[in-house]
């Protein structure tokens, strides 16, 4: 059994992602995968398939419809404005799209990425064992490219959402702090102590020249002590490179596997999702923490995600913000992973 998911409109930058393509970094193949792993997991857990894939909707928004049958979706991410046939639904929710209905996702009060996971599987060929799209190398997803208006993807074994409307509550989702924690290095010796101090105390603004590969930051140029060339070495998600122009580049999901600019610091794993959800023009700042503090934060976050999401059926009444809030607080709970 199958149904078809139709992309009716899509802004630039939306792609299909699973957890990522691993094991080929040594041949220069980028893992890709979600920008905000926590939000992605919230959508997957709610869809009942933690190893599945989702559409990663960018700030450009998207409109979707179903053809040939009903398809349920679990949606989570930044606080996007979601509408089903013009009626507002919560930013994190599960719902069923019937043929003839339209689901629209538009950037809302905060956040840059939103995940739409089907109850069912995308019928697409995997590349090296993964569906993750890496547009710069044209690998994965739908023809290795961004999604666009007119695209159709078959969903195999589509199921409706278990209730007509379900709010998804995941304690690790929420508006991100402005302050992101970093571990200094490993090339902090390429910068003077006053430069590092300025880097840590300055407000940084996310540049419009940011994408899934890297977030560029605007602020006081970071001066190099001994040039901007290092012998190219490996790059991790969250590495903060300082290229020759002194404008920090934070390497994101589509980062190149290696690079030759010195890395002043790394954003800790627990804060990568918060960073990803920043929008061009948003301000952020950095706070240096120890490796041990980073691990504590990472374990705490892993425990939250392990505990899963809470699904709360919603009534069919007018969905005002107050109503949604009340439902979230008092509603029944469905196990997310059954």
């Amino acid at each position, binding site marked *: 059994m199958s149904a078809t998911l139709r992309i009716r409109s899509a802004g630039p930058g939306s792609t299909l992602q699973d957890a990522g393509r691993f094991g080929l970094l040594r041949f220069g193949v980028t893992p890709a995968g979600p920008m905000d792993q926590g939000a992605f997991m919230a959508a997957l857990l709610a869809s009942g398939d933690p190893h599945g894939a989702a559409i990663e909707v960018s700030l450009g928004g998207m409109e979707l419809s179903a053809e040939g049958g009903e398809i349920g979706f679990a949606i989570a991410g930044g606080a996007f404005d979601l509408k089903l046939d013009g009626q507002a639904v919560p930013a994190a929710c599960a719902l069923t799209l019937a043929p003839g209905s339209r689901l629209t996702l538009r950037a809302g009060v905060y956040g840059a990425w939103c995940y739409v996971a089907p109850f069912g599987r995308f019928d697409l060929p995997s590349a090296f064992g993964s569906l993750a799209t890496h547009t710069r190398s044209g690998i994965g997803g739908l023809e290795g490219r961004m999604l666009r208006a007119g695209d159709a993807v078959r969903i195999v074994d589509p199921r409706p959402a278990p209730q007509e409307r379900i709010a998804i509550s995941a304690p690790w989702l929420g508006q991100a702090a402005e302050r992101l924690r970093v571990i200094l290095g490993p090339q902090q010796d390429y910068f003077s102590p006053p430069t590092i101090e300025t880097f840590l105390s300055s407000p940084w603004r996310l540049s419009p020249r940011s994408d899934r590969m890297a977030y560029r930051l605007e602020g006081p140029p970071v001066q190099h002590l001994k040039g901007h060339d290092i012998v190219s070495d490996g790059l991790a998600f969250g*590495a903060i490179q300082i290229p020759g122009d002194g404008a920090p580049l934070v390497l994101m999901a589509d980062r190149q596997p290696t690079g030759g600019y010195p890395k002043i610091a790394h954003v800790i794993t627990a804060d990568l999702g918060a960073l990803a959800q920043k929008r061009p023009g948003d301000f952020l700042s950095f706070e240096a923490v120890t490796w041990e503090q980073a691990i504590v934060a990472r374990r705490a976050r892993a425990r939250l995600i392990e505990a899963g999401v809470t699904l709360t059926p919603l009534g069919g009444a007018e969905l005002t913000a107050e109503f949604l809030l009340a439902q979230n607080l008092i509603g029944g709970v469905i196990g997310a992973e059954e």
Partner: protein
Amino acid sequence: MLYERPRYLDAGDAALVVEFGDSVHPAINARVLMLDAALRDAALAGVEETVPTYRSLMIHYDLLSLSRAKLLARLEELAPQAAQVFAPRARWRLPCCYDPSLAEDIVEAAELLNMTPERLAALHAGGDYRAYMYGFAPGWCYLGGLPAQLALARRASPRGPTPRGAALIGGGLTLVATNPMPTGWYVIGRTPEILFALDRDPPTLIEPGDAIIFEPVSADVFQSLEARASSGEVLARREALS
């Protein structure tokens, strides 16, 4: 320079870098490749993947299942294996065209290096290279052995995409690119060879550690070779060394 002892560097909380030196040198890269092989054989649970580079090995690992202390202890145990002799297995002859019509930055790079484009091409084609690592993008092969006269800093900021198969110089290094990507390097040649193909297993031809020689070809020859490569033919010649 090869360090007396490897440096263990945290790249955030999800990766550890084992750095053997601070330069591009066959002896340093050999340590990297040998440690990579030793770690693969050790099959340590929690190690997700490793990325050998010129002078260091990046180890992506899951801290929730493998502690940093345990990883460090295991790396110390494996150190003697990394110090063993490494020998290249093969030499590849790669056609490369240095004509400015295909090598869009060769004139600019030659000016910056204070030489003619012909001299730059001759020096680049005269080098005896070793594949040290892949990186940056699928199949981008970084080589050691660039003649010192061609040492040129990369551009201060990356610029628009390079053509497919570009031979690039920058930061005193050279590499052969596959797909178009933005970089701060200079395009000084192009190879018609397809070095990375999704439908090949493995997707790459050249192994890290292999020796490479560039064979200059004219723009006309490039066009005909490119057509052959596009139809699936492997142009580069491989000689077994050991």
